[in-house]
């Protein structure tokens, strides 16, 4: 479904992603695991096309120059230079890290804004699905989003990505700053996403422990370089992963 060939991203002279290749097959949950500054967010921004927009803004500001090499193929179509909004239309939707939401609008409005590209009936249907997925959100329907807790905002952010009807959902650090209970809830939600809606998920995370059991395939990033690949179980058994991410 998604193929990344020899992707390289430079921020001025700093190399954020070095010769990174990966593949996501239809119906898989794929994880990108890495510590801080491994290049997870850069990868997500590149896949969602946000980096195309960032590059233009940096050029206009005379700031850092962003250089991009390599190819991104989505359903055998080259989308390396496609803008973020066009990629959403194709079905790639990113839920950015640190749960960005519209703080001044309430939960229902947030979800409606996210579904702007969809038909009205479709949006209501999707919102219903989001409320089924996260029952906690349904009760907060008319609460101002800015006043909600981090976990609730994270649920809302994922819900907003879902309303845009992705075929490939990119989740950037969905567990960041959440309690273990909240983490389990989200992990279960991701699992049921694939089972019920058939959405392919690519998630990046630094907490490997809750994520590794549910992924079909994992890529371990270190300083922008791919160091290990394997299925979820393979990675869990790997002594290096155990040492680095489980502290065993």
């Amino acid at each position, binding site marked *: 479904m998604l193929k990344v060939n020899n992707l390289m991203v430079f921020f001025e002279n700093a190399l954020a992603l070095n010769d990174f290749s990966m593949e996501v097959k239809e119906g898989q949950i794929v994880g990108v695991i890495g510590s801080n500054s491994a290049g997870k967010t850069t990868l997500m921004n590149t896949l969602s096309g946000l980096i195309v927009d960032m590059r233009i803004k940096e050029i206009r500001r005379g700031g850092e*120059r962003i250089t991009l*090499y390599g190819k991104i193929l989505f359903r055998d179509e080259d989308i390396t230079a496609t803008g973020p909004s066009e990629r959403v239309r194709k079905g790639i939707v990113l839920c950015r890290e640190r749960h960005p939401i519209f703080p001044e609008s309430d939960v229902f409005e947030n979800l409606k804004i996210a579904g702007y590209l969809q038909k009205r009936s479709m949006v209501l249907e999707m919102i219903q699905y989001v409320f089924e997925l996260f029952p906690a959100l349904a009760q907060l329907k008319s609460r101002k989003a800015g006043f909600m807790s981090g976990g609730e905002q994270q649920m809302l952010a994922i819900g907003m990505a879902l309303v845009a009807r992705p075929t490939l959902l990119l989740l950037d650090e969905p567990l960041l700053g959440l309690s273990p209970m909240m983490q389990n809830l989200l992990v279960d939600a991701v699992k049921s996403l694939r089972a019920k809606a058939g959405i392919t998920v690519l998630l990046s995370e630094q907490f490997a422990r809750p994520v590794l059991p549910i992924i079909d395939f994992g890529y371990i990033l270190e300083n922008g370089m791919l160091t290990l690949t394997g299925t979820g179980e393979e990675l869990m058994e790997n002594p290096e992963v155990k040492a680095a991410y489980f502290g065993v």
Partner: protein
Amino acid sequence: MKRRKERIDRGIKARSEDIFALTSYREMLYLLFPRAVPVVILLGLTPLLSPYWQEVLISTAVYALLAISWDMLICAGLVSLGQSLFYGIGSYIAGALNYYWHWSPLFTIPVATVGGGLLCTILLLPVLRLRGIYFAMVTLVLPLMFLRLVEATRILGGTEGLTGLTPFPGQLTALYVIQLGLLCALFGFRRIINSDYGLIVRGINDNDRAVMSAGLNIHWYKAQVLFLGASVGAFTGAFGTHLDMFAGMPGFALDYSIMPLAAAVVGGTGTFAGPMLGAFILVPLSEILRALGALRIVFYGLFLVIFVVALPEGIFHYLQRKYHQFERWVEVE
């Protein structure tokens, strides 16, 4: 073979940042050159100009000072649209002292500078807690309010203004007074903003809540920055009063608010040298375009748009980058 453009600091920049700079003439020259350019041009070359262009230069320096004052406020995150408030207050203080008590410019200008700065700070103190557009709106409205106040109550000469004030001994004296003021403000403010104190000021712009969490009273710092900016604005007002031998309602004109803003945008904000450079491009340009008559504003506006679109970072930031860094093509892998 893939190539990309690399941007790196010049070796001489890295060397001259160190104590090593003091051991070599080349490094010293590298540091000195950009700082010497404005000093030499302003103080050395201006007496050679014709009287007309000297006059243009004076008004350029006035706008440059107002632009620097605007930039100081922007450093603390205060977006001001009311440089004319500072100009007008400074102008009326100096004018009144000279008109009613016959003080010499030698005293009126310093008193107006400090007093005007204080008065403006006190006037804006209640709205200092407002951020962004609200502060801008209040600063825009205050000078207009004063304008109508003077007109309605007929204090300070009313619509006629205060006329027949003491002029400067000669045009060259006036030129040097304003240029020395300009250089002092430029280098002084650059020094302040690069010190630890400036770090706090820039921090307030970046993330005021983080500065508050560090246990610093941001409103006190904002007030200090406002005083610095307002004093510079009041100085130009006091200077302008004695130059024109007149203090009146035009001091609160919108020109004094908008022009510094345009200069700062063209030159590049946050550096003080940028807004000054912007003023030194825009004001003479508007004089040159005078020959075009009514079309002048059209060309002037067009020129501004081209500048903002082509070099949105500002001329000074661009020049600075070219001076400190170079680019070269390197192979990837």
